[in-house]
């Protein structure tokens, strides 16, 4: 990724020198640089240690906890499938769709700025539901 960013910088410098470079090419190069920067930021944010919460899919077919309170902002949600069947943690309001095989643990990073209640459910067992309660930012 660093190499790509460096290449993008060199590209932009080159574009500045060459007056004949088309606007479109210049814009696309800048976009590439912006993308690399954004990627770097995203990686840094993950490394910075986000507030972390855990939701477990229990063998009896319920979420633990079924109601989770989190502060507004960016946080990490560890998903543990402790059941013997595959599950799909799904919530379009949370922008998450994640399939977990039996016994698999994974995580998602969510950003929510608006306090409120956000429903989530298991798309493979649609009667299994839970609620994420987003409180004011800390």
């Amino acid at each position, binding site marked *: 990724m660093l190499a790509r960013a460096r290449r993008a910088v060199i590209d932009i410098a080159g574009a500045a020198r060459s007056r004949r470079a088309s606007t479109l090419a210049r814009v696309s190069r800048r976009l590439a640089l912006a993308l690399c920067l954004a990627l770097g930021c*995203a990686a840094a944010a993950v490394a910075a240690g986000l507030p972390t919460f855990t939701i477990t899919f229990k063998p009896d077919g319920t979420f633990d906890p079924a109601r989770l309170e989190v502060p507004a902002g960016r946080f990490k949600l560890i998903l543990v499938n402790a059941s013997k*069947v595959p599950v799909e943690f799904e919530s*379009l309001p949370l922008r998450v769709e994640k399939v977990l095989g039996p016994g698999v643990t994974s995580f998602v990073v969510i950003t929510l700025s608006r306090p409120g209640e956000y429903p989530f459910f298991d798309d493979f067992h649609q009667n299994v539901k839970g609620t994420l309660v987003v409180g004011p930012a800390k």
Partner: protein
Amino acid sequence: MEQVAFIVWRESVEALLVVGILYAWLRASPAGRKGLPWLWGGVLAGLGLAVLLALVLLGISSWLSDQGQEWFQAIMALVACGLVVQMVVWMKRHGRGLKQELEQGARAQIGDSNWWGLLVLVMIAVAREGSETVVFLYGTIAAGEATGSMWYLALAGVLGFLAALATFWVLQLGGKLITWRRFFRITEILLLLLASSLLVSGLDHLIALQVLPTLMDPVWDSSWLLGTGGGIGKVLADFAGYREYPALSQLIIWLAYWVAVWCLLRRAGRPAQRAARVAQAARSGS
């Protein structure tokens, strides 16, 4: 049991919609038939990729990290969206003219690049939902092994897939029952709606990765009117990209998508109309 069959049907139907529509389109013209091996190649490649993805989701393999999965999902959705639009534009440009071009002895120039696009599109469509079906079926049947209901559950899975195949068949039948022009119009809109939902889903992943700023999140809250947890809201989310809490950047890109599609199709439609007019003039002249 019905739940297992229903989930398999639901997970397969999106892929079968894409494959089914493209199949009907290709079969409609002699030049298009040359694309059929690429279509089936895409299905095979998609099944292979689905299994590879399923191994990650099952925790057996880890060739993709959690972050990597998020990126992979985002890229798959956005590439598929672009390829759907490309296919629709290509069909619009060549679909109606193909027969005339061949009859007039003109060589239909169909580059390999278009067929590669077709293969990749079908591959992604099959792999995206296919991987989830594989995990679901494998996990459910493995769990059923303990309780002795394994064969029963496997049968439910087969039934779900048969229901999906029946959907494919109905689609092909639809192509025969109504005029080609109308069939193309309807399926074209279906695919463009599906592409918009792929776009929105890809953007969801990009927002989750913090690559795309939200600008304003959410722009509105329509959860009181139509939630995406199930029912019509979920169908609209899966097939048209509806969201109850859209981000502003998502909304802007969604609008830009429809403007771009409209412009592209208007431009693509023009030469076909001209060709049709020329052909008509030639016919009335002779």
